[in-house]
């Protein structure tokens, strides 16, 4: 009984804010003004229509998608190669390099905003996709390498050795044996990377003007007289939907992949 009560409380605490926001996004402006409700009083899709018709919300969605997707692909390509060498190869200073890479993931991004801004400006890259992809790649890489290396280490090395003896080169064995077996870890890593890119704010705010990503666009919504809460909530929901879909699709793997490296080392 106490268990059930705790579970219900936890579910409410976790879910209620999002539910209220969702209700708000389909409530009329007038209803919103009167107060927070648990059920839409004058249900309307006006905010969503306004979002796409007047604010061209497609644009930031597209930019976010391009940036997040290309970063994710690059991150998996480069990250899995790097993670494999951490997991399998013997070389000097391995612990140091892995530690250094992890430390980069913990860097305060604010310390890099100014030099990156100046550098990107000098290259004429402000407001371009690489302006976001490069920093995102760098900051997503440590976690990706950590997760993948943890997984690769758990794959029996004999499988690769068997492939070498069967006549595969290292690269071929990696492609034919390691990658297919690492699919769950690759999926989890892809999602973590995608989420990081989809959610990032500081760099996106600093390095874009027109090509705003979703978080920047939503944060900068302004109304003429007052805060346009209906549209903000609608945009929030739209920004959340892809994330929600991803999480629901693979949530079981997600939990495992996320915590694999962290606890088992």
């Amino acid at each position, binding site marked *: 009984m106490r*268990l059930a009560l705790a579970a219900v409380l936890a579910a409410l605490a976790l879910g209620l804010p999002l539910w209220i*926001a969702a209700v708000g996004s389909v409530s009329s402006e007038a209803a919103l003004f*009167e107060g927070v409700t648990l059920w839409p009083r004058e249900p309307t899709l006006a905010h969503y229509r306004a979002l796409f018709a007047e604010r061209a919300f497609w644009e930031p969605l597209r930019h976010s998608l391009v940036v997040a997707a290309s970063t994710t692909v690059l991150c998996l390509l*480069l990250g899995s190669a790097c993670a494999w060498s951490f997991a399998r190869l013997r070389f000097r200073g391995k612990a140091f390099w892995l530690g250094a890479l992890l430390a980069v993931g913990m860097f305060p991004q604010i310390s890099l905003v100014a030099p990156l801004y100046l550098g990107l400006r000098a290259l004429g890259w402000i407001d371009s996709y690489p302006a976001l992809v490069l920093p995102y790649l760098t900051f997503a890489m440590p976690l990706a390498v950590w997760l993948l290396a943890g997984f690769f280490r758990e794959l029996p090395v004999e499988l690769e050795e068997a492939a070498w003896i069967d006549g595969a080169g290292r690269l071929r064995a990696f492609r034919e044996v390691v990658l297919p077996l690492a699919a769950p870890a690759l999926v989890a890593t892809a999602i973590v990377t995608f989420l990081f890119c989809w959610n990032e704010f500081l760099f996106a705010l600093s390095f874009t003007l027109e090509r705003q990503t979703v*978080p920047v666009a939503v944060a900068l919504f302004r109304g003429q007289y007052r805060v346009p809460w209906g549209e*903000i*909530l609608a945009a929030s929901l739209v920004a959340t939907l892809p994330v*929600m879909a991803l999480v629901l699709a693979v949530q079981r793997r997600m939990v495992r992949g996320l915590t694999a490296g962290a*606890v088992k080392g």
Partner: protein
Amino acid sequence: MSPGARSEGRLAALLGLPVALCVLAVAVLPMLWTVWESLHRHDLRLPWLGRPRVGLANYAEALAEARFWDALAHTLFFVLASVGLEMVLGLLLALLLHRAFRGRAALRTLALLPWAIPTVVAALVWRFLFEGAPAPGGVPWLADATLAWVPVVLADVWKTTPFVALLLLAGLQSMDEALLEAARVDGATAWRSFLHVTLPLLRPALLVALVFRTLDAFRVFDLVVVLTGGGPGTATEPLALYTFGALLQELRFGYGAALSVIAFGVGFALALAYVRLVGRR
């Protein structure tokens, strides 16, 4: 070293090269530039001043600036309050998710949502809850220098407690149930076996969660920007926001660089602690 080892070293260098180049270009070199810049006066609004070398003047200015100390204090307060709450609530949620009950899988999925959504969205949702409609309790939360912290910390706790819980849950699940059963056979109460068996075994996971969250909370930016804008006034302004303002609004790059270096120094010390803690396992 054997020839095999040498060729493995070469292959590792080759495979790691792209990552190393990224890190070099995006993190290491910019950071060095920031250190160099912090020793100069460089004000983009006053371009005719050029970029004279001023030694540690920027640091001296920061240390003499009350707003800097306020920002640092805000950041540390935020870290303490939110990470403290997250650890306690995260542990409770993890213990709950570790028990078997109907709907556990659904609750776990639900817990993933706050963690997965953009921080900006989380901040907007909580701002709406506190300000969008008539304020709860009739209190103007966001207009009060002290009360404004409530939605800020709550939003962060709501968004990141699930992450802590999932980390700890993995720790709980890798734990040997036989130990708890042994404790029960030995006559320990649930509370005592939690205190003397579960908690010590959970220590590594707790440490990882703690340091991970501390470092992340130290960088807090988007949450505050969207929820309070650092206000009212500068009452909730964290270090990252103060630095951001000096850099990209006031365009005082030298001074902003000094602030960046200070933020980096604190962050680096925390990161070192993190690597050492993780590396020791």
